[in-house]
């Protein structure tokens, strides 16, 4: 069935046109006398001074095979095995003549090529049902696989690279202080702390603190904070209808509690006049001398 292969080879339109692979030709192989050799020799003649570097530049048997195939504008899928094998062996011999350190893989490939060649010569039965493959299939797969990563390597090399193509911009910051990181606290940590202190103080026994009181106590703080020293706030302004019945109740209870604790005074100048709320003042006989702490604490 060998003639089948010839049909394809001699019928160029059948072959999928090769995508141009400029980097293949421009892939530099060597530096000779300081000049990059970006062109592989068109035939087997290699300038003697370049020979060694040239041969060393191959990344292995697959790379060498690809070079031989591309140089002749052949498709990987359609390798003339006999010819390629012949050329491959000549390069191997050249390498051996130059006593280059020849990786064992080159010789393994030589054997593989020889085996494929011999299998191509064997007639294949037309009614074969055991799925006999093209003997080149595995080699073709490996060549393609290698070639795509060879290209990928070239692509990666052309990616815009830091320190070569682009440069990190940076500016100095002299005298930089150490940042204080505020400690983080979880609610749970705080609650555990509170449980402990409550246990110590035997607050559980007295049930001084109940859920319902908390919003009242918070409201007490809010109301107190609103009252400026000596200033009055309209009683009704401490209630917001938007807060609903519960909100009004909370404010009211908070006011009563503040009154009970002697923290506020509710003032009415005459009957039926509006109520005003102000901070409790000490006994009238005492002159208030504001301490420094008070000034600091005013919002």
């Amino acid at each position, binding site marked *: 069935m060998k003639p089948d292969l010839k049909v394809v080879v001699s019928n160029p339109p059948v072959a999928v046109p090769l995508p141009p692979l400029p980097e293949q030709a421009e892939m530099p192989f060597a530096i000779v006398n300081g000049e990059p050799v970006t062109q592989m020799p068109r035939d087997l003649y290699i300038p003697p001074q370049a020979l060694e570097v040239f041969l060393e530049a191959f990344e292995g048997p697959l790379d060498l095979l690809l070079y031989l195939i591309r140089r002749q504008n052949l498709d990987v899928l359609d390798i003339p095995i006999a010819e390629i094998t012949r050329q491959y062996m000549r390069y191997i011999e050249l390498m051996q003549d130059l006593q280059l350190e020849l990786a064992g893989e080159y010789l393994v490939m030589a054997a593989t090529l020889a085996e494929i060649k011999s299998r191509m010569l064997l007639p294949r039965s037309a009614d074969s049902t055991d799925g006999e493959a093209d003997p080149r299939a595995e080699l073709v797969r490996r060549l393609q696989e290698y070639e795509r990563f060879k290209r990928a390597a070239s692509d990666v090399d052309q990616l815009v690279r830091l320190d070569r193509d682009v440069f990190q911009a940076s*500016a100095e*910051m*002299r005298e*930089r202080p150490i940042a204080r990181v505020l400690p983080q606290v979880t609610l*749970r940590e705080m*609650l555990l*702390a509170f449980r402990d202190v409550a246990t110590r103080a035997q607050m559980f026994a007295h049930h001084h603190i109940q859920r319902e009181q908390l919003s009242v*106590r918070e409201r007490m*703080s809010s109301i107190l904070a609103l009252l400026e020293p000596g200033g009055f706030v309209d009683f009704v*302004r401490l209630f917001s209808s938007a807060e609903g019945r519960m909100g009004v109740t909370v404010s009211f209870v908070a006011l009563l509690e503040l009154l009970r604790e002697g923290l506020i005074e509710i003032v009415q100048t005459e009957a039926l006049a509006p109520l005003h709320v102000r901070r409790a003042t000490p006994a009238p006989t005492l002159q208030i001398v504001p301490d420094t702490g008070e000034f600091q604490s005013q919002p």
Partner: protein
Amino acid sequence: MNEQYIKNVVEAGLLAAGRSLGLEELAALFGESERPGTAAIRASLAALEIEYAGRALELKETASGVRIQVRREFATEISRLWPERPQRYSRALLETLALIAYRQPITRAEIEAVRGVAVSSDIVRTLLERGWVRVVGHRELPGRPELLGTTREFLDYFGLRTVDELPPLAELRALADINPQLVLQVGAQGEGERAALPDPTPLADDAGDLDDEPALAREPSAAAPGLVASGAAAED
């Protein structure tokens, strides 16, 4: 040689170097045939300086040349890039904070009475600085001790809408050190829910007043300036 190009290269060179460059080094950035003179480079530096006005950058001339640096006014922000190791708050501070939350408004002496030990002024100052606690008034006792209460920031930090979402004391007793998950569910329902659901569903026993609660928490602080002003107006 256009000015824009010279300025761009000078700026890029200074930022890529990340250090001071002398005028000669700046000139050396350009190809030999297009190398600008000292005057042109100085002009580009002056132009950059104008561009940097109102920004965080500035040009600084040093002995070895010129550099681009971050203005000192931004030192605090920039220093956060290199934070010190975070500290932890002491147990005493957490207890104090919790007592203020549960028993506000409360004086330092009252906190000490419950805790059984003195509360250092450092702790109170730390809590004030952190913005979790504020002085809401004074108790009319000798020395007029400050009354402390929690703030809106306190609620925000702990993910609470109101202090009502803190578990009541009775539930606190059940707080187990061993099972944080359980504790979060049982104890800090507000927080747990918030983490799980964008819009917390009210628990059954809170359903009645829950509608009002967000307003409760928000209203006082939002309305505060108005209230204060009206208080002053009512003075007469």
